[in-house]
């Protein structure tokens, strides 16, 4: 079992519905977000390109946040989802420093917080909130180890990239380009 997400940058329109759905589903306090949208414009007229990317924790296979955690509060659970055990977190913020994607933040209640791939939904067989809410259906989620899953097929057939491959983190969010 290896959960992964694929986000189709050709279909994403940057509406930030995923951000709102995440904030509401996970009751993120005002002024904080677990996900965000990057709009990247490149080139010189007339040779230009525009890319929208819905971004969040990459649930890295080689997760620096898990390795630097002094108490084991940051851990990788079954299926490769990186989580934070709030009851073990001392709030030292080392994991916030360690993330090349700046995907973590300190929750006002004192613990490190970030995207959980909506683990509470996924463990019941549902999709993360951002996947279901997307109006263009550009976010795919599933088990990469299952060759017949939609995500396996789309990652296999479409051209894709991961963010900051040079950081050596082996992310599990793929951006279809």
């Amino acid at each position, binding site marked *: 079992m290896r959960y992964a997400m694929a986000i189709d940058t050709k279909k994403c329109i*940057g509406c*930030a519905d995923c*951000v709102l759905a995440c904030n509401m589903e996970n009751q993120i306090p005002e*002024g*904080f*977000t677990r*996900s*965000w*949208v*990057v*709009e*990247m*414009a*490149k*080139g*010189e007229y007339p040779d230009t390109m525009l890319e929208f990317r819905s971004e969040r924790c990459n649930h890295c296979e080689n997760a*620096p946040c898990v*390795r*630097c*955690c*002094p*108490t*084991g*509060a940051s851990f990788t659970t079954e299926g490769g989802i990186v989580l934070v055990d709030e*009851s*073990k*977190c*001392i*709030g*030292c*913020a*080392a994991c*916030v*420093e*360690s*993330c*090349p994607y*700046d995907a*973590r*933040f*300190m929750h006002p*209640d*004192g*613990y490190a917080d970030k995207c959980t791939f909506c683990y509470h939904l996924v463990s019941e067989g549902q999709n993360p909130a951002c996947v279901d809410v997307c109006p263009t259906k550009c976010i795919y989620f599933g088990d990469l180890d299952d060759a017949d899953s939609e995500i396996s097929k789309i990652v296999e057939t479409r051209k894709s990239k991961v963010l*900051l491959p*040079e*950081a*050596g983190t082996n992310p599990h969010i793929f951006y279809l380009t």
Partner: protein
Amino acid sequence: MEEIIVIGKSNPGVYPVLDVWGWEISVYLFLGGAAAGTLFFAAIGYLLGKEDALPMSVKNAIHFVPPALLVGLFLLFLDLHHKLNVWRLYTSFSLESPMSWGAWTLLVITPLSILWWLSYHYSMVPRWKRSERWLRKISNWSVRNRKILAWMILLTSVVLGVYTGILLSAFNARPLWNSSILGVLFFVSGLSVSAALIQWLSASKFETALFRKFDLGLIGLEIFLIIHLFMGLLSGSAVQIQAAGLFLGGPFTLSFWLMVFTLGLIVPAIAEVLEMFGTRVNKLVVPLLIIFGGLMLRIIIVNAGQVSSF
């Protein structure tokens, strides 16, 4: 041309610029480094049999160490966002986490420093406490076992001193910090702060002159390490070259080269050379500048490191 607009990200302390570690961490690293340097000199002086020739470094500078370590630990505690969980540092050990190494090292070195202090300064324990038999027993034990204590302190002081830099350098995500030179640089800087304090406070002319020479050597070593830190960054990947740029024309250029390099290293080195050749320089100049430079080094590296990213 590339233009990036980020929609929806608003996490304070993380976006747009990472600023989650503040002055508490910088001062903690400074106090840890200075304490490590002082303990290192005390242990090595004792092991080389220079207890009487170097009274300040072996016996007296230790007065500062337990308070510095305790204040440092308190600052680390202040930095925690979930303070009630602090005990969890000591119910686990993670080999790959510098924070864990630091917490355990401090747990070992703080009592060692108190034992060293007791072994020389039991007479300073308040009279009403001296009647406690267990305290006298511990004190007698530490006097008898100074050699074992010295070896343990020597080892743990190096671990502590190097750790103060490794805490930062273990982060691949912050290209400025991601250099092993920081461990050695912060340890040498801690030794230099300690050497400056010893030469200031020592009543022995021999000890003052010796630690002036030590400090000059340490300043030279620090300059060498700083040059190598930048050489390493500039010959690194794009993000590391960018990180070096923060100090080479970027926003930290003036503060680093003026406060750390000139005022914290070059000026005290000149003052020490002048003193060696008999010119009288106010006794406070060298220690104050070295302490200032050491503190600024940590503050600037901690802040600049958080600005540097992929």
